[in-house]
């Protein structure tokens, strides 16, 4: 029994290694990605500085300029870290027919893709997220606490990537029915960036939108880790709340994505028979 477990884990890590190698092959892409994030930080720094300068109050919806800046930069950094073209790659595989090869493997398709994505996310974390974090840490005047919240944040990030993966997979299922790569991926990205608080923090949403968002997995992916990181004097009960929220959404998204996936694979049609 112990031998079987070891080989499964070994298989998972070998997939992760594939993902890392695949990601590192496009090293230039990561530096460009980081450059894009730096441009984003510059743009929103100036934008929100101007917005708050024209505002009659310093604190709007409970957030100051610094709070908003930190939240936006980190939410965006999480998005860029988790957005490893999961939907696009699966759709591409469906179009080219390569997906049959992966479906025939003895490991469940989810694990194959997730293993690979983990590898890519790890590289993204080091080359994209960490630099962004360092930049915003110093740009905001080192107001972010460095302590046990980092540990909880990291756990939150890991869980967020699982939830995000399942969410992406639900969208990828639509690629079985339509033949669209770009359309589905763009649709997903627009919805996620808007409702995740990466364009404007959730605190600024109108109440009716806040309610809608609370029924979606996005707060568990983006808001939960960020609240664990940025909250002042967070008690363990607060950490517990957010972690439980993430576990809850992890279970739901796993179930939904598996259901959708099984249904979609049965309806598989490939170009050219």
């Amino acid at each position: 029994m112990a031998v079987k477990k070891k080989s499964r884990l070994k298989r998972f890590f070998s997939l992760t290694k594939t993902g890392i190698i695949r990601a590192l092959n496009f090293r230039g892409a990561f530096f460009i990605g980081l450059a894009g994030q730096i441009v984003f930080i510059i743009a929103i720094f100036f934008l929100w500085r101007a917005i708050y300068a024209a505002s009659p109050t310093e604190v709007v919806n409970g957030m100051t300029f610094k709070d908003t800046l930190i939240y936006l930069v980190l939410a965006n950094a999480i998005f860029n870290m988790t957005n490893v073209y999961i939907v696009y790659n699966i759709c591409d595989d469906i179009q080219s027919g390569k997906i049959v090869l992966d479906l025939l493997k003895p490991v469940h398709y989810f694990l194959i893709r997730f293993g690979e994505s983990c590898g890519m996310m790890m590289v993204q974390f080091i080359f994209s997220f960490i630099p962004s974090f360092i930049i915003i840490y110093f740009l905001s005047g080192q107001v972010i606490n460095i302590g046990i919240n980092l540990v909880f944040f990291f756990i939150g990030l890991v869980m967020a990537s699982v939830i995000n993966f399942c969410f992406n997979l639900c969208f990828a299922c639509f690629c079985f029915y339509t033949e669209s790569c770009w359309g589905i991926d763009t649709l997903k990205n627009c919805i996620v960036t808007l409702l995740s608080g990466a364009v404007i923090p959730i605190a600024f949403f109108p109440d009716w939108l806040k309610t809608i968002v609370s029924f979606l997995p996005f707060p568990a992916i983006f808001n939960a880790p960020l609240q664990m990181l940025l909250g002042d004097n967070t008690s363990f009960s607060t950490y517990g709340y957010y972690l439980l929220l993430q576990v809850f959404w992890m279970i739901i998204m796993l179930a939904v994505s598996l259901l959708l996936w099984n249904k979609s694979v049965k309806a598989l049609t490939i170009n050219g028979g």
Partner: protein
Amino acid sequence: MEITKNKRGIRFYLHIYKMLFIQCLKTRMSYRSDFIISMIGMVIMNLSGIAGFLLIFNNFNTICGYNKNELLFIFAFFLIAITPNQCFFDNNWNLAFEIMDGRFIIYNLRPINVFFYFMSNNFDLKGIWRFIIGVSLLVYSWINLDIGFSVIMLLKLIVLLIFSSLSIIALINAAAASGFFFIGGHQILMFTSSFFDYTMYPITIFNSFFKALFSFIIPIGFFGFYPCQAILRPENNSIMPWLTIPLGVIYFILSYKLWTFGARRYGGTGS
């Protein structure tokens, strides 16, 4: 010996374009659901940009002295200005892949202008939604702005739109042309297009260094903000909106030269 001169006039090129256009359309339409989903994706993409904007203005009233309707006006201008690039020059996005595959050499082997041939190979129909949403938004914000309407204003706007779109095309051309010289051409193009997200902010939010950068080096200022000054702040009598015209021409010519230089230099992948 009489050499038959091949007249490479406008009519010839229009004829070629029409053929390639119809071919492209037929291919797209055969993937019916992809066609529809892509159209929807484009609409959602533009609407979510507007939605993000509106969310900001749900909580704040002005940004650097510009209110919601003025910035929506600028955004609408940009959406219309980017349509020619989106529709006619969309093949730039495939350039990096065709270079790497070696397929690009085909364009060099045909006896017509490489740039023209390459660009006419792809027409992005979903770009038409940028135009539709842009015009609707323009009308909406124009009505809400209370600045009145005159034919002169409209003519000014059309002229500025034309030359602004030349600048946009130029930027994308130059970014795509980097694929002739560097390996990460596609990434550079993606990076450059990310600047489009920032065209609806007033350039005045930036400090002098970035203002200069975003006005002349990566001229997002001329994609919306500066041209609209002619309509939104006519009392300033600023020269900036009218700089759009010469700059549009200059940038386009420079990018065209860069693109064709790279294309000529391309030796294929050695087969």
